[in-house]
């Protein structure tokens, strides 16, 4: 367990350092200013991973615990919520996405050969599947938000 924890921490540190750099280059936030926020995110992630690891129930992914934890910790009124929200506001969302998709790009190379073999039918259906999910959800959300007068 401890070994895993150290391992996760080191890996997260590398990704976090890259995101801090991207946050500086792309969004002009000084790395030191964003550091407390980044550390808060890392701690939340680690606690979430530990919860996932310890619980015998594995059907929920680790990210479910991480998201829930981050959410609860920043609900107004929870001790320290304001500080965490303030710190993490310095970490630009888009700066986090860039290293993720760089790793994703490298990892998809592995499936490239299978992808190249894929027929045009699969590609059309694949696009419809993605669009169906995305637009389907957006349309339902829009209808309800309009009924409620939120948008």
């Amino acid at each position: 367990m401890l070994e895993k924890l150290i391992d996760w921490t080191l890996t997260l540190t590398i990704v976090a350092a890259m995101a801090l750099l991207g946050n500086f280059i792309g969004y002009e936030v000084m790395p030191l200013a964003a550091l407390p926020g980044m550390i808060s995110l890392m701690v939340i992630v680690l606690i979430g991973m530990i919860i996932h690891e310890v619980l015998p129930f594995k059907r929920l992914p680790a990210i479910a615990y991480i998201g829930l934890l981050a959410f609860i910790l920043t609900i107004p009124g929870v001790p320290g919520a304001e500080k965490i929200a303030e710190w993490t506001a310095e970490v630009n969302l888009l700066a986090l996405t860039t290293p993720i998709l760089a790793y994703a790009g490298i990892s998809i190379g592995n499936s490239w050969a299978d992808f190249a073999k894929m027929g045009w039918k699969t590609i059309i259906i694949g696009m419809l599947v993605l669009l169906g999910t995305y637009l389907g959800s957006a349309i339902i959300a829009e209808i309800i938000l309009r009924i409620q007068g939120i948008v």
Partner: protein
Amino acid sequence: MDNNSTHLWKDWRLHLVVLVIVIITELIGTHKIPVGAGAILLLPMLYAVIIGLAAFFTPLINKVQSRKAESLVFMSVTLLIAKFGVQAGPALPELIKAGPALIFQEFGNLATILVALPVAIMLGLRRETIGMTHSIGREANLALISEKYGISSPEGRGVVSMYIFGTIFGAIFLGVTSGLFASILPISPLSFAMATGIGSGSMTAASLGPLVAMYPEQSELITAYSGASNLLTSVTGLYMSIFIGLPMAEKYYSWITKLKSKRRG
């Protein structure tokens, strides 16, 4: 994706390649291409996925590193998920107000069955259709289908091909289309924000990015909605497939094929 792979941090060459990609892409910055009335937003993350893929074909990256990169996607997505969470917490009052929309849009994920399944049958595919269209075919669905039908069954082949398609094309496709749709369709960016909870970290990131960049004044609420929707999908997604998506795809499939054979007969 498994999160048990260890010593990921040791592969300095892989991280160095990603570091260089991050620096280059952030320096290039965001660019906007007008398309008719709308626009496609080119974000650093979009160049990053393409440069990353290109790097795979150079001697810099080998197959082992590419597999490690897959686990690293999981590890880095966790930070994004935490960011979602801390953005959603302070917006709790707004989230409660938008609760009905957040809950019901989860069912929008089923729209993919209604739209894609008949087209797949029309194109002449058979039971592969069920594996392909019952969900967007990420890891959990791969597990579900192989448990139920076996991975070498037609359903299994279907879900595998969707998995590969989504892996390669998902982030790029949604990264381009989400900004385009938001700029041409009469749908609020807040509704699109709720739709970004797709069930795949990299696809969520790719579809949310253009929304945040195009509507900076609403970016906090957009991220909060996206985070809440993501959380809902990560908790309910698999069960949605087990109890609704898959049975619905099965019924719909047999109904359409019956209809088709009747028309022929």
